[in-house]
Each structure stands twice: as C-alpha cells, then as structure tokens.
C-alpha cells in the first residue's frame, strides 16, 4: 500500500505512529469540509472583506526599464492584511480548525509572518493561539513578536537544535502529537507530511488564480514567466500551481544562497540539496554525509529552512520549474532597488525574487511579461537592514 500525497517521487507520510490518526482525520475532514458551499462562501468573503483580496497586479514600469527586457508585473501580496501571503493559508486553515471543532491552534514561524497571520486569524475566529518560534528568530524579529502578543497569541521560544524554523516545526509536531484532540497544527508552508503540502497549496493557489485573470485583462494572455522566492515554498507554489498545465509559462524559483553556495552558508535546498526525509516528507534536504540536517543561513529568516516542499522537488526533477540561488548581498541590493525605483519596500524574502526577475528579464523581449510574487512587505526588515548598513 502506497501512501497518498506524492508529487512524483516526493512527498508522502513519514511520521511517528502517534501522529498518524490525527493526520488521517485532518485529511478526511479537509476533504469533506473544504468541498462544502458554506465553507467556500465564508472563506471567499473573509479573503475579500478581511484580507483585502484580490491583491493588485501592478506593472512595475521603472523596475522593468532598469532591468531592460520583459515587462515586470508585481503580484502585490504585500498589500494583503498582515503584510504577506501567509494570511491566505492562515484564514483557510483557521476556518477549517473551527469547523473541525478545535479550540486551540498552534503554529511554527521563522520570520514571524506566518505567526502574525495565524495569530490574526485566531483573533478573528476566537481560537486560542500558541506560536513556536526559534530563539534566534525571536531576537531578529522582535517587532513581529510584539505584534503576535498584541493579537493575543502566546509565543513559545524554542531553544532546541539550531533554534530556527526547522526546530520550531519539530516542537510544534511534538505538541500536536500530544494535543491533537483539541488542537489544530496550522502549518505555514507546503512542507511536512501529507496532507499539509496539498492543503497549504490549495489555500495559496488563490495567488496564481487571481494572477491568471488579471494578466488576461491586462495583456490579453498568459505571462511568459513567473518568479517567486522559495523557502518552504508556499508563495511560489501558490503562484505556480494554477499555471502548471500552461506549458509555455516558464517558472523560476529564487532560493536563498546566503553568503554564497560555495561557502556552505545558505539554504538553497533545491539547487544543492539531496533526497531524504525531513518533517514527514521525502524531499530535497541540505544534509551531511551521515544524513544529519545542516544548519542554514540567510539574511531572510523566512527562507531559512534546510529543505523544501515536496512539490517543488518534483517540479525541479521534472524540469517544469528552474531554481536559482540569490545571495544575501544580491537580495539586499534588490531591496534597495525596488524601494527606490517603485516606492515599494519589499520583504527580504521577496527581494530574492525581485533580483532573479530583474536578472532574467534581459533574456526576454519588451513585448513579453514576467510576474513576480511580491510575497511580503519589508517593514519587518527595515531595522535589520539599517543595522547591517551601520545606520542604526
């Protein structure tokens, strides 16, 4: 018997037996509940009136001119409520948790964007919320921690392992194994065991679905290429997935190359990772010769993850999408570029995608178009950049 939830040879269900019953229940409830008309209506109404969807698709004329090539459009997820695409999945899963009869929600967070989105959805839907966040991340994302507190969430500081996102996922899974009767684990990316990669993708696909309609209105056709940053890979899968069967639409993922791939201090798991099992999924992982998971590094906390969602591993293996590393330095330059050229301060995560888009734009002609998922706004990163550049 083969487990469900495979994307080619990646994905699956590699979990301790104590988690099996809860995950099977989640799979079953998700299939039933998400199909109902009331759920769909409630979700659509919240996405529109509360989260501010559809988010705009903006033609970045000045950025396009500077890049010199294709017309670059920005899918403005930074304008969604809470400042990133994370709200799409948080509202979807929080509604699901409510309908599954759960009173408590737990989640992991790296940069804090998913923690803020989850705390927001829980405040809205009157659910108790606890966020697992690595000690290292708590220090570098103080503002988001305060936001979560304001929203009524409790932060559990994770002091095990590397004290970043991967350890927060370990801790949240441990909590879930003991508490799933009344608790929903609201996983924030397209990682983890089945059914998470599918559930999160479905709630994030609104990004690509809207983009398709907006491009049809704007240009009368499909874009020629899509670009998004890839940590776990939720905003990118959200943008890519509705276009997978449109073979002429090229897809590019920007992974964090940190100090440079050759230094070993990065988190480019598709570019240089190797097959293995982490957090319940068979996927590409940064690991040593023994199979111990590597410590990772990126200026963008939200990309600081040593593996990638299994569907990305499949898109890469099947050559449907291409993945490139973007260094910290390149991302910071793109952070400034977009701020100056367009008056939009991007999240450092999204700045990786902006860099890659500006770079590949030259390979396209002026009548072609590229859509970049601007997954989040950069307010959370301003203090970090100012400090990095000695201005604070």
């Amino acid at each position: 018997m083969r487990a469900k939830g495979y994307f080619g040879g990646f994905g699956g269900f590699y979990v301790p037996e104590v988690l099996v019953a809860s995950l099977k229940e989640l799979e079953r409830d998700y299939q039933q509940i998400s199909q109902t008309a009331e759920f769909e209506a409630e979700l659509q109404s919240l996405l529109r009136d509360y989260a501010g969807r559809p988010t705009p698709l903006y033609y970045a004329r000045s950025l396009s001119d500077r890049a010199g090539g294709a017309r670059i459009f920005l899918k403005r997820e930074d304008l969604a409520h809470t400042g990133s695409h994370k709200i799409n999945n948080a509202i979807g899963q929080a509604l699901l948790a409510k309908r599954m009869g759960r009173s408590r929600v737990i989640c992991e967070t790296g940069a804090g964007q998913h923690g803020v989105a989850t705390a927001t959805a829980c405040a809205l839907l009157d659910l108790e919320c606890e966020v697992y966040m690595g000690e290292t991340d708590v220090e570098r994302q103080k503002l988001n921690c305060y936001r979560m507190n304001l929203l009524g969430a409790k932060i559990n500081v994770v002091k095990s392992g590397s004290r970043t996102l991967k350890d927060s996922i370990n801790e949240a899974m441990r909590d879930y194994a003991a508490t799933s009767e009344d608790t929903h684990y609201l996983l924030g990316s397209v990682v983890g065991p089945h059914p998470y990669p599918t559930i999160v993708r479905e709630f994030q696909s609104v990004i690509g679905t809207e983009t398709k309609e907006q491009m049809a209105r704007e240009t009368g056709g499909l874009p020629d290429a899509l670009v998004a940053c890839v940590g776990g890979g939720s905003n990118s899968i959200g943008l890519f997935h509705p276009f997978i069967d449109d073979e002429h639409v090229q897809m590019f993922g920007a992974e964090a190359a940190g100090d440079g791939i050759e230094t070993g201090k990065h988190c480019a798991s598709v570019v240089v990772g190797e097959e293995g099992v982490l957090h319940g999924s068979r996927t590409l992982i940064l690991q040593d010769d023994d199979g111990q998971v590597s410590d990772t590094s990126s200026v963008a906390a939200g990309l600081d993850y040593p593996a990638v969602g299994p569907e990305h591993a499949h898109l890469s293996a099947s050559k449907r999408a291409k993945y490139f590393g973007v260094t910290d330095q390149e991302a910071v330059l793109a952070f400034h570029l977009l701020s100056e050229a367009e008056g939009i301060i991007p999240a450092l995560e999204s700045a990786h995608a902006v860099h890659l888009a500006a770079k590949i734009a030259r390979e396209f002609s002026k009548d072609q178009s590229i859509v970049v998922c601007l997954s989040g706004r950069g307010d959370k990163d301003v203090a970090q950049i100012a400090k990095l550049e000695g201005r604070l």
Partner: protein
Amino acid sequence: MSRIAATFERLAESEEGAYIPYVCCGDRGVEFTGELMRRLSRAGADVIELGLPFSDPLADGPTIQAAMVRSLSSGFKVATLFDLISRARSDGMDTPIVVMTYYNLIIRMGLDIFCKRLAEAGADGILPVDLPMEESADLERIAGAHELDVIRLVSPTTNDERMAQILQSARGFVYAVAISGVTGQRDSLPHSAIAMLKRLRDKSDLPIAIGFGISNQEQVRQAIAAGASGVVEGSALIDIYARGLSEGEDGALDLVEKHAREMKDSARAAVASREKRS
C-alpha cells in the same frame, strides 16, 4: 529462530517480563556507550535498544534530544554504530540488539548497505521511528533479506483496523507507545495505554514491549498486568547517569546498573503475579 524470538520464547517459558533499556549512541562518548551496553546486559537486559542520534528527532522529548545533541556535537558518525555492535559481539555479548533510528539516516546510507552492515555487525532488528506502515514496504523487504526484524510501533490512537494491519507485518516484538506524545518520564501509565495493551493482546501472540514515559517499577507492574511482555526505558536512564556523572563514569554506570537490576526484578516478578491472579 532469530535472537529476538528466542529471547522472548525463553522469557515466556520462565515466566519473566522483558526489560529493554534504550541507549543513545555516543552520548558521553562512544566508550561510555560500549560500557553502558555491557553493564545493562550484565544487569539482565533482555534486548538493548541502540538509538542513533539525529539532528531533528521529532518523536523524542527534551532528555533524549539533549543526549543526541551532545553525541552529535562530539562528532558521532553513523559508521561508529556498526563498530559498537561488532565490538559487543566479539566481547561475547549475546543480548539481542535493536537499532532505533530516524529514517533519513537509513536512506542516506542506502537501505541495502545500512541493513547489510547492521546484519554483519550482529544487530537483530531495526526500529524506524518515523516510518509508518504506508511507507515501509522497501525497508521490510530489504531488512528481511538480511534477516533483520523490522519492529513496528503502535500507539493508543492506532485504531483496531490499522492495528491488525500493522501486526500482520510485525516481526520480533511489537513496540507499544504508551502515550500520545514524545519520549520522556511520566509517573504512571495512562488509561489509554492500558486499553491499547488489551487490544493488542486480543489480536496477536507477538511479544509486546511498551515504552515512552517508563521510569519506575510501579509502571512495570501495571504494564505487565495489562498484558505487556516487557518494558522499554530510555529518558530515565539518561537522567540517572547524568546525575551519577558527578561521581565519575564508574559511579554513573554503577547507578544505571543498580536501577536496571531493580527494573528487571520487577519485570520478572510481575509476570508471576499476573499468572497467579488469572
């Protein structure tokens, strides 16, 4: 007959419960691990569970994770596991050895090479903590070819239908997880664990070892009275030698050995008192 099966057969004949200590490889050094195995075997351990340290042990609680971190940061390599086992065998240790590991470490080496080296070193079984039955066909086939038992886990939340399926492919003994959660000490056995043991007993004649949260003799009596064939103890042992280390390594090992003897005595007595009652 496999060494594991022979051990449980002998225990059934002599009406003894099994005591199965867990040892985290490389914690406090590889030499310490080897000595710990020897002392536990001498104290009457019926099976030794050797745990491979992993960077992301999501089924384990803080005590075992901390032990794994210590082991890995002192440079432990998977290859050392095979040396530990073959050394124990060449020193004459005959206690069955089951290797508890996260699946990524097996995948990384390659299923066939991993199983081959384990079998050659003298191990008897593999317990992959994060490999549910849906994903285990490859490992079962390859381990079987090397005459290694793949030990299956069940938990209190495993329903009857699934339990029956798991038992079909179970070899050696069944590992019953006492709590819904991670490893680490608890005071007593939860009701759900007792109920799970009864459900398992109704469905299978395989030996049942119960673990996660086991640390005292009262739990041993409870578990065996409810139908377990033995108990697995892990985090508590790590705490015991951590406390004893202030007296030096020998002092720590003495404490572990003394505790292991008491646990084994309880396991021995518990079956007799169960038989008397029924």
